[in-house]
């Protein structure tokens, strides 16, 4: 009988413990534990080219974890679709510790960045430099280097296809500064000059500016180019991932694959797929990982020492058909692994 009592006591205790554990589990399912960080940086980028910026942001977050910095993607969870300038204003008023900004280079932006800098907020401009502002650092691809990469590809194409004075259309958004545009065109020309193609075989270059403020203008503008079949360029150079995707889609839709050579930018799965299928001749890949981490490093360096280098170049890589195939296979294996 005493054994019965003891058994019952044990069962009751066991049940109580089990119940407490279950309660705790349930409570923990709801409760969140937060990690506290030293710094609060905001990442402001355009909503276009989401995949590209997602990668950059992920790299920045990863780097931020190492430096005990929380990187917030401002605007993402807001119900209103703010422009980058508005987000910059909110960041200013929110007294954050650092701003990573990629947006239009205009007066408003320059004013807001300067305001932020005066408030003691470190600002890094990303990909697109805000040249007249007092930003601490610019992290991005040197336009001349980018032009050289494209130049090499165009030269290779011209030689392959035996093009004489190939007509090149460079798709850039209207916020791109004149100097940048010039650097790109110079670099392409330099490539042809160095290849001793002579004065007679210089490419005909046209820069098509696309209105970045209008959400769907890129697609329309690119289709306009294809519709004008008489003046269709031989080579189209896309300076961002959205233009790349729009161009190759238009090439497919208007049955101009092979006729118009496309040089892309960035490597989404769709772009890589197109490169592999040779719809896109090649694409220039920007190291997003490096881009993201360099932003954080620049800001942290500024916070620690009071200064940082004003320009951090990001390396680029050209991806051809074979490379695209390899990358796609790697991604497939990775997906299967997950």
């Amino acid at each position, binding site marked *: *009988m005493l054994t019965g009592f003891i058994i019952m006591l044990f069962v009751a205790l066991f*049940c109580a413990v089990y119940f407490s554990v279950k*309660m705790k589990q*349930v409570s923990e399912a709801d409760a969140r534990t*937060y990690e506290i*960080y030293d710094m609060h940086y905001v990442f402001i980028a355009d909503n276009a080219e989401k995949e590209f910026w997602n990668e950059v942001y992920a790299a920045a977050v990863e780097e931020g974890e190492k430096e005990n910095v929380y990187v917030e993607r401002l605007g993402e969870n807001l*119900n209103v679709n703010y422009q980058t300038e508005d987000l910059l204003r909110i960041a200013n*008023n*929110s007294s954050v510790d650092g701003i990573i900004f990629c947006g239009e280079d205009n007066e408003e932006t320059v004013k807001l960045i300067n305001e932020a800098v005066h408030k003691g907020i470190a600002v890094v401009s990303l990909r697109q430099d805000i040249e007249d502002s007092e930003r601490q650092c610019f992290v991005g691809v040197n336009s001349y280097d980018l032009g050289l990469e494209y130049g090499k590809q165009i030269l290779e194409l011209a030689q392959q296809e035996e093009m004489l004075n190939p007509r090149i259309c460079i798709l850039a958004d209207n916020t791109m500064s004149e100097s940048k545009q010039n650097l790109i065109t110079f670099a392409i020309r330099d490539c042809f000059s160095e290849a001793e193609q002579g004065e007679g075989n210089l490419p005909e270059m046209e820069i098509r500016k696309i209105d970045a403020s209008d959400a769907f203008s890129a697609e329309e503008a690119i289709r306009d180019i294809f519709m004008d079949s008489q003046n269709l360029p031989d080579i189209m150079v896309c300076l961002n991932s959205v233009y790349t995707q729009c161009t190759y889609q238009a090439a497919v839709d208007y049955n101009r694959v092979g006729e118009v050579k496309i040089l892309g930018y960035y490597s989404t799965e769709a772009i890589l797929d197109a490169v592999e299928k040779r719809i896109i001749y090649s694409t220039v890949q920007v190291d997003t990982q490096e881009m993201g981490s360099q932003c954080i490093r620049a800001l942290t360096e500024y916070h620690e020492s009071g200064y940082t280098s004003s320009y951090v170049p990001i390396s680029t890589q050209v991806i051809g058909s074979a490379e695209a195939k390899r990358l796609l296979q790697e991604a497939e294996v990775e997906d299967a692994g997950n």
Partner: protein
Amino acid sequence: MLVTKWNNASIQIKLTVSFTFTLIIILVMNLFMYVNINSMTSRVDEVYVSNVNLNELSEALQVLHESVRGYLDTKSSDSLDSYYRADQEYRELLEGLNQRVVNNRMKITEKNIKAQSETYLETIYETVQAKRGRNVERYKTYYDEATEIYGDIQNCIYSLNNEQFKNNSGSYMILLSSLRYMEIISTVILAMIGCINLVMVFMLTRNMTSPLIKLSKAANEVAEGNFNVEIEDTESGDEIGIVSRAFQKMVTSIQIYIQEIKNSMERESRMKEKELLMESSMREAQLMTLQAQINPHFLFNTLNAGAQLAMMEGADKTTEFIENMADFFRYNIKKMNQDTTVGEEVQLVDNYIYILNVRFTGEIHFEKEIDEKVLEVKVPSMILQPIVENAVNYGIRNIGREGKIKLTVYRKDKFIYLSVWDNGIGMSEEKISQILKGELKEVDLKSNSNGIGLGNVIERLKLYTGREDVMEIKSAGKDEGSEFTVKVPAHI
């Protein structure tokens, strides 16, 4: 120690402890789960508190902005007052917002709202100051700036509120399902404990009743007469244990008592049997005597008269003969119911032989060899004469030669031997054993002078001495004579 104490506890204590124990456990478990589930329920109630707080914050901000607008419009002291109050209220509400840098989007938005609000409050303050200083351009600029920030903050609050609502709805669903889950668990636990309780109570009552059932079975068996019941030895010190042990003791005592009664009854019945036998033998002897009673009395009186007549006539031999006869019959009458001595028995034999010798003109040669020391030894009456008569009637009568009878009385060890020897026709072994077994009783009766046969003698001797070897008969064979030896203990 505890086990011993428990075993020795009374049923009342056992029952009380058991029920209290189980009751307490169920109560405690119930209370425990009730408190836990209650706290969870209260958490469910608090799920949307954050939304309420954000709404309050948004409203307070609106009131603040409107009060500033009112002040800018009217510059009234009322509106200024309401601005101060709204400002104070909004600041208080801001206290509840997170201001640390944490890896949670909502918390970070809170931090942003708080920081923007501080900028907004400063701008508003500057606006009011500029209005007070009548710096129209400045306050307009500040107000525009403040309005812009106000819009940003409201947007942030709105977005956060939305996100929190989504999140809280998720939490609410989780909590609700958890609550149901916990309710099921608690029900299962309670049911389980209840079952164990039931089993325990069952075991307890069985522990109590099973010895009682055994006891009642044993009692039934005892009632049916089977005293060889064994009750399992119980170590329990409670009332049932005590009753069981007492019952066992009682059954054992009854067994012993019954055995004793049996023994004494057996003894008694043996004695009674013996008594009855003795009595029946006596009665038989008495009956025989009574049958012959008229003759001895009459003969005795007649013989006395004859003896007196013979004496008067001077016929000595006749007198002696008649006296002998009278003695013989007197002995028969007197001694039948009581013990006598060896001497008197020998005397009776003398009388008898004398009578016979007169009757048969001295045909019988009687010798005797008596140990004088044993003459006073007590023996049953009428044991020797029937043997002698038997020797005369069946031994030496009609043998054609001289009949001899020898009576020898002697003591050997603790016994007296009375031996009657004759030289008559003798007898077979078969007959000897028939006589010793008393199978020739009826034949004896017919021809005996006083009606007492050998069988009767043997029977009485057996009863008297309590032994079986009271007579020995020897015979060498036909015409070789026979010897009857009576063996009686000397101390009787």
